[in-house]
């Protein structure tokens, strides 16, 4: 039985524009998402900002009601059986918020332990255990307001696993954390899975999904545009080629024309300081460099490089469609 099941989840927001004459506006944040996660998996929801990852996760953790569709966690429906779901899941999100600044880490954990049903007798030992796990032992009596972003993140994880949930949902857990801290966090996350938990992670860092996840679903604009293991996703662009061309001030019509060249599967522009880099993915059959450069005649062109595609390119191709 799948541990997490999402079946055609939809979520629409109604908002308004204007002050005096308010016009209603309907925003479809999630448009029919379906996926499932097996026990012991580390599943990634990968997508750019605004793709609907956070909305999806909030529906799964019972904070938002889906507009339509169904979702089940450990067999319990997220709408009808919310309480049962909440007992068995942990929720961790990235960022500075979500903690009581004026209290110590220990006081924060005591409170949440009580709320999340850690029995009175076990609280002290459990808190010590999680503090040890996340590497905050010794600093638990300091006020959270003095904590760095990395420490707060670790405290979030501690809080999320206090009640030893079977499933842990992590929403962009490494956002804004320094590279070393982020690496530690990732190790903690893998350890959770190694310890038998099922983890659903949302992120917009491709390398993170690639490094951590057993399976990934790529979300763009409220829909899943691709799913599979990192190897499978990379396979989509295997056999292909990526050509990177430095240009100075290329315009949109030209980029569109480049997209039209036979063999080109995706073109994206990266801004790097004063220049732009056109990243052109090709299916590898044709030799298109000459055709590309021909289209760029009249523009200043710098370095031209060729390389193998990475998961990032697969992601870009999927998201760009």
């Amino acid at each position, binding site marked *: 039985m799948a541990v997490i099941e999402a079946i055609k989840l939809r979520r629409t*927001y*109604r908002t308004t524009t204007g002050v005096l004459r308010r016009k209603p506006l309907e925003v479809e944040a999630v448009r029919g998402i379906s996926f499932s996660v097996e026990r012991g998996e580390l599943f990634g929801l990968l997508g750019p900002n605004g793709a609907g990852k956070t909305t999806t996760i909030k529906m799964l*953790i*019972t*904070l*938002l*009601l889906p507009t339509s569709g169904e979702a089940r966690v450990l067999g319990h429906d997220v709408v009808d059986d919310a*309480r*049962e779901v*909440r*007992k068995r899941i942990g*929720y961790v*999100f990235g*960022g*500075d*918020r*979500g*903690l*009581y*600044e*004026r*209290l110590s880490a220990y*006081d924060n954990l*005591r*409170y*949440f332990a*009580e*709320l*999340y*049903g850690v029995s*009175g007798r076990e609280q002290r030992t459990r808190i010590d255990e999680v503090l040890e796990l996340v590497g905050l032992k010794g600093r638990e009596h300091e006020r959270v307001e003095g904590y760095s972003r990395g420490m707060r993140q670790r405290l979030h994880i501690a*809080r999320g696993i206090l009640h030893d949930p079977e499933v842990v949902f992590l929403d962009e857990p490494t956002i804004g954390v320094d590279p070393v801290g982020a690496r530690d966090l990732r190790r903690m996350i893998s350890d959770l899975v190694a310890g038998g938990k099922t983890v659903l992670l949302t992120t917009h860092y491709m390398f993170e999904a690639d490094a951590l996840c057993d399976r990934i679903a790529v979300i763009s604009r409220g829909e899943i545009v691709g799913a599979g293991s990192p190897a499978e996703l990379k396979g989509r662009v295997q056999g292909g080629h990526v050509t990177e061309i430095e240009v100075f001030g290329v315009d949109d019509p030209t980029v569109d024309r480049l997209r039209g060249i036979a063999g080109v599967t995706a073109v994206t522009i990266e801004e790097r300081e004063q220049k732009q880099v056109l990243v052109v993915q090709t299916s590898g059959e044709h030799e298109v460099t000459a055709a590309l450069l021909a289209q760029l005649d009249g523009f200043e062109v710098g370095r031209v490089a060729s390389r193998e595609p990475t998961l990032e390119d697969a992601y870009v191709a999927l998201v760009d469609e």
Partner: protein
Amino acid sequence: MSSLRVLWAGWVTHFKIVSRSPFAIGVGATWPIVNATLAYFMYQAGGSPQTLLYASLGSAVAGIWSMAALDASGAIQRQRFWGTLELLVAAPVKFALVLLPMTIAIASVGIYCLATTLVWGRLVYGIPLPLEHPLAFVLAVPATLVSVGVLGFALCMLLVRFRAASHIGNSLEYPVWLASGLLFPIAVLPAWTHPISWSLATTWGMRALLHGSLGGPVWLDLGMCALLTVVYGAIGVAILDRFLDAARRSATLSLT
């Protein structure tokens, strides 16, 4: 049993948090002094020590209500701002058990109001504090704090749906002060308003403190506080699920 644990843990946690807000304490402790001073000046003409004691206690209860009205309705707002609201809702506990101790803790900060007003009255105006019924007076303190806190909870429930909760709390200060007979007896108000007065915890808390100090039907007052606590609690809980559901539907939980 575990519900009581959750309530207690919640009360301790939130009392700590509010107590560590220097401005909340500063204002909580000083506004009552301001009210008291105002009342002292105004009553000067015919002010007996009993009238002035009345003004002291009334100002303290006014302060307790202010904390409850302004802060309790703002409590949800604050949790939203701190990003903790989601975590509280996502907990497998009845949200009422999370919110109740929060509003009671906020009202409890009113204990500082009581202390400072009585000390101020004693030091600056020489107002004595007789204790005709000492036990009842001592009980009247938590009775007032809890019943006003639960009233704050009921208020909060009505406002949890909306984002501008604290603005309503603002506009309820004077009406409740007016109706509760805090700085002047209810007898001054038109008779048709009396039922409103009798349904407010502040009215009975005030009377309990006054009668505990000067003598009077204090046990009736305490009984009314207890009764109203149950009534407000029931109302709050009844509204709670409906509104929480609506918040999940319209996604107002994490918006600041």
